[in-house]
């Protein structure tokens, strides 16, 4: 890796007991995020789960109430500007200060900040994403602003990308183009990505790590493969009056029709199947889940 000050840690991003409160609302509660170097880590969670707050703390735009955060071994609170120099950040909202500049002017302005700014690449991205160069930033639509933010984040080829809803406000064609550009970007240079998105299915084949935020707590964090292996959909044939019994604790979702029950369960398939069989159920089929369905299983209320 080319970035400096890397610690012995294998994590590009790590947080320890990170807490953030706004008045009486807890935005983040004891979050221990671990993003391995080179990972494409997707953060899943409903609105208000704390995803944007987490990004802001990593960028040192907000201060935590407790806990610490490190980016490439640098404390984000003490070395905020050093951290930001190594990060391409797409924020959830548009920044106000540069509204009177044109897109082209803002890109030149940003280029002066980053020694590694790649002018040819910035031009390529600007064209590929269709950023209107002579439009004032304040007059850009939501989608155009997003495209400009993507160019600003990618063009200096930072070792870490923090992308908070990077395809928000983009139409489906541009969304796909933006993600294709991101895939190419990852092929060009080793880059770690931490991103949040409401369109989880779109990043299904880019993601290799997944974290699930629920009410400010990181309720699941694992590799894509582990998620695929340990969260599966089980189709069961159950005897009359069958109750899940001790499986209840791991049962995440259940729907039933007659004796057929379908539920999403967490655990190694062999062990889950043994427990199900012991409870009197017959396992008819086990199937893997799409990333979105597996992650969402951690967000639904336990079956009652």
């Amino acid at each position, binding site marked *: 890796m080319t970035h400096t000050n890397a610690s012995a840690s294998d994590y590009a991003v790590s947080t320890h007991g990170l807490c953030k409160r706004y008045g009486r609302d807890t935005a983040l509660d004891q979050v221990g995020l671990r993003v391995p170097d080179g990972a494409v880590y997707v953060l899943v969670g409903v609105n208000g789960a704390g995803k944007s707050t987490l990004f802001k703390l990593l960028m040192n735009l907000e201060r935590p109430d407790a806990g610490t955060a490190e980016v490439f071994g640098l404390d984000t609170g003490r070395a905020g500007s050093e951290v930001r120099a190594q990060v391409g950040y797409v924020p959830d909202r548009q920044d106000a200060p540069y509204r009177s500049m044109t897109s082209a002017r803002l890109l030149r302005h940003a280029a002066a900040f980053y020694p590694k700014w790649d002018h040819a690449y910035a031009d390529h991205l600007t064209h590929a994403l269709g950023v209107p160069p002579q439009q004032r930033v304040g007059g850009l639509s939501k989608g155009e602003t997003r495209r400009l933010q993507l160019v600003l984040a990618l063009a200096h080829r930072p070792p870490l990308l923090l992308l908070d809803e990077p395809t928000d406000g983009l139409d489906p064609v541009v969304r*796909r183009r933006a993600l*294709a*550009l991101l895939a190419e970007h990852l*092929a060009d240079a080793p880059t770690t990505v931490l991103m949040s998105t409401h369109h989880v299915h779109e990043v299904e*084949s880019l993601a290799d790590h997944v974290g699930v935020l629920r009410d400010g707590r990181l309720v699941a964090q694992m590799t894509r*493969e582990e998620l695929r292996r340990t969260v599966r959909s089980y189709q069961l044939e159950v005897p009359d009056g069958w109750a899940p019994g001790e499986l209840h604790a791991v049962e995440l979702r259940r729907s039933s029709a007659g004796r057929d029950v379908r539920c999403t369960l967490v655990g190694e398939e062999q062990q889950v199947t043994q427990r199900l069989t012991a409870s009197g159920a017959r396992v*008819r089929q*086990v199937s*893997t889940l799409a990333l979105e369905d597996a992650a969402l299983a951690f967000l639904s209320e336990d079956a009652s």
Partner: protein
Amino acid sequence: MLVTLDSRDDRPLYLQIVDQVRRALLDGTLRAEDPLPSVRELAGELVVNPRTVSQAYRELEGEGVIYIRRGQGTFVAPNIHPDRRERRPLVRGVAERALIEARRNGLGVEELVTMIRELAAEDGGERSPSTTAVRSGEEGGAA
């Protein structure tokens, strides 16, 4: 060669890419010394993690199916004999999936094999519809 991924396929994405290259060799879409798309191109086209494409290419390289010419790209091996070499893993993959499905439905191997023979006999020994549909303009086939 056109690679398409199936999100409903249970297998890891890199294996899907490996299988599609094998299939392309069998049906002649890919031939000896043909260039393959670069990792960057294929990652962008499929919107997949470039590591997935690299993993697929490493697997194929390890099997001697493709080779990497430094600075020039990835190519199909010169002495490729798709019939001998590629049919077996492809058949194995299809059989594995059928077997998993059979077990999940509580069916035995013999039942499955018998039914496959019966179905094939009903077809009158014709090529399966999906194969003929995909392979327009073929020259004799690999059977």
